């Protein structure tokens, strides 16, 4: 189908974008790569009357390490840029980000889709949401009332819902510390489809021994979730099998045409174990 009519605005800079959003109110949507939004508009699932295009704002395209060893990803950085890492900024500490990109759609989606767009869209199976949750990211947002940092725990509020105000723009995603023993894996019926279930882990390993870690799941609830029950097993020196079983027992994924609750819980068990093994082998 074709989208409903809208008025197109090109934002010159972040302040210009937030001013436009404040003026236009609920009728406006931000467009970056458009890889989710344009599809929804073509289906008329979304009918914004104004689009604010932020793709030309250069300051949002930066990808760099900060003085503390963290990684700062400008919101307009594409999945493809992270995947190819042309400047080698990811190193081994953030190789998990590079390796996770292959799960996102296909090449022509990754060349346009942006990190900030994916996170602001907040799909419960999105790889970037999962990476942000498992690695404890922080989000920098800017609006008419200034700039603020939002911890990931306060950011994803439910189905496609975030803590961003309608006139705020996501500027930057901050991954505070390297994660050399992290991994993301998922299952979809076909390569490139939305995951039925996705799992990510970030292990704390000292001298070859797992001391603890973080476990996050996508596709089991309204937003990506941490699984404290599974993390407790890791912290207590339990096996990956026990960790995976604890994760499967802890969640109650809703059933739909793609799989029952039982089936998804079994996927959780398998994928958490796989992610743990992959993370440890790094």
């Amino acid at each position, binding site marked *: 189908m074709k989208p409903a*009519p809208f008025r197109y605005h090109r934002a010159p800079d972040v302040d210009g974008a937030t001013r436009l959003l404040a003026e236009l109110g609920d009728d406006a949507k931000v467009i970056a790569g458009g890889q989710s939004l344009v599809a929804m508009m073509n289906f008329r699932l979304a009918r914004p009357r104004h689009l604010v295009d932020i793709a030309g704002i250069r300051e949002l395209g930066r990808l760099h390490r900060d003085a503390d060893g963290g990684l700062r990803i400008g919101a307009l950085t594409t999945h493809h840029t992270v995947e190819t890492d042309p400047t080698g900024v990811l190193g081994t500490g953030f190789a998990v980000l590079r390796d996770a990109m292959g799960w996102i759609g296909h*090449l022509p989606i990754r060349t346009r889709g942006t990190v900030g767009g994916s996170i602001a869209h907040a799909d419960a199976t999105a790889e970037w949401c999962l990476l942000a949750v498992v690695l404890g990211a922080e989000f920098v947002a800017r609006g008419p009332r200034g700039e603020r940092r939002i911890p990931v725990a306060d950011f994803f509020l439910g189905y496609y819902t975030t803590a961003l105000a309608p006139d705020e723009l996501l500027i930057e995603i901050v991954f505070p510390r390297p994660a050399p023993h992290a991994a993301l894996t998922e299952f979809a019926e076909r390569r490139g489809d939305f995951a039925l279930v996705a799992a990510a882990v970030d292990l704390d390993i000292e001298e070859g021994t797992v001391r603890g870690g973080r476990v996050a799941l996508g596709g089991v609830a309204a937003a990506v979730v941490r699984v404290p029950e599974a993390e407790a097993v890791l912290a207590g020196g339990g096996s990956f099998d026990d960790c995976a079983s604890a994760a499967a027992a802890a969640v109650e994924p809703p059933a739909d045409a793609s799989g029952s609750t039982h089936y998804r819980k079994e996927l959780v068990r398998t994928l958490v174990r796989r992610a743990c093994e992959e993370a440890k082998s790094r």
Partner: protein
Amino acid sequence: MTDTTAPAQREVQLITLDVNGEQHEVITEPRRTLVDVLRHELRLTGTHVGCEHGICGACTVLVDDRPVRACLMFAAQAEGARIRTVESLSEGDQLGDLQQAFSTHHGLQCGFCTPGFLMLAEGFLAERPEATKEEIREVVAANLCRCTGYQTIVEAIDGCAQARRRACASRCDSKESDVCS
């Protein structure tokens, strides 16, 4: 002052597009996707439109040398970018090497998906001239073909990549190394 009123039904804007090296001025509605402007306004009907939600890949074109879905991009977003369509692959009636490889390897039957596969492969091989057959297999999963079963498409792209590598190596051997650098 920003015009914050809701758009009228047929509101249009002027955009300039760089397509296959030529500048085009187009007056069109903002809601027109790139693929619709290419086909309807510029009459470049080589690019096909299939699913219109980014699944089938029939509309794949190059934007700044990278393969993208022309149905998931508004034409206005493509201002200032270099766009290449399937029409850029041939010289008149003379097929380009990638097109010739698809013909040689029987990489098409009905042909509807072919322009998308060609531009996907053109963009991918430019970035990964050393691509293995496995990498090619992974990349063509982006597009749907319901005739060939993909095997011949993979062979066509791999055949073209090999031929380009051979040509590059022989040019290097004949001391025209600047051609390959």
